[in-house]
């Protein structure tokens, strides 16, 4: 093996390699055995800990059912009973997503999960919450039924009062639908991946007042 291929031996060109530096950064901060550990601290022993992974599972179902709906077009589920079933999957998976996300929020709050350098993880979590609300909002506006009509007519006043109604027109189905199936799922997915990586990088926070942890 030449020095350039060996991880230990660095040739002069390696020293300036951004690719190598990126790889080293990832290996240092999120090595595979931190990303996918088969062990956890023994105090990870409460059902409260499963709310996060259930939220992830619900999000996966939201996306899968949403992909099916978008593939068949926004009017399919009104006319087809199979479509209505898939809309039901999408509707209930969204309900479950918010239910377990909020339970996860309650759990993390009462565990003060932001301690020991985990403040950024908490903050990203709050951003995910806000982004999810926005995504759900555009979804409710995309239903093309009575509910979406009234939500649009009512919500426009808040958007307009805030100044963004000129750019984010809730009465414009095309805009709301496009945001809902394309831009916002990408944003939420990206944020959730970042959140999970941050959790895995630092590991689960220690119990409150555990030795070796910091006060806040």
């Amino acid at each position, binding site marked *: 093996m030449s020095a350039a291929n060996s991880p230990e031996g660095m040739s002069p060109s390696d020293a300036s390699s951004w690719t190598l530096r990126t790889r080293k950064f990832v290996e240092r901060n999120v090595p595979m055995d931190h990303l996918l550990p088969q*062990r956890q601290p*023994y105090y990870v*022993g*409460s*059902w409260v800990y499963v*709310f996060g992974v259930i939220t992830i599972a619900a999000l996966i179902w939201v996306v899968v059912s949403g992909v099916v709906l978008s593939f068949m077009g926004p009017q399919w589920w009104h006319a087809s009973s199979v479509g209505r079933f898939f809309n039901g999957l999408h509707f209930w998976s969204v309900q479950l997503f918010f*239910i377990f996300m*909020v*339970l996860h929020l309650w759990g993390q709050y009462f565990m003060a999960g932001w301690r020991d350098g985990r403040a950024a993880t908490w903050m990203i979590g709050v951003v995910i919450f806000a982004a999810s609300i926005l995504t759900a909002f555009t979804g409710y506006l995309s239903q093309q039924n009575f509910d979406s009509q009234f939500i649009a007519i009512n919500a426009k006043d808040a958007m307009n009062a805030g100044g963004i109604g000129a750019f984010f027109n809730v009465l414009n189905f095309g805009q709301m639908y496009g945001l809902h199936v394309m831009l916002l799922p990408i944003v939420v997915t990206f944020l959730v991946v970042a959140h999970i990586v941050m959790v895995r990088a630092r590991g689960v926070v220690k119990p409150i007042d555990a030795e070796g942890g910091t006060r806040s």
Partner: protein
Amino acid sequence: MDTPTSYLHWGFILISVPNLIVIGGMIVLFAIALVAPFPHSQGGEDVRRK
């Protein structure tokens, strides 16, 4: 399920029965998660991080 549902009116609070079920259910679920025993691995290796 498309028939209108009933609402509970308590002071300024006005909530639909399905919403109350969801919120009440969440509180119950959280309480159960707090107290329900969690399956602990028996023994396992007492591996301490070096």
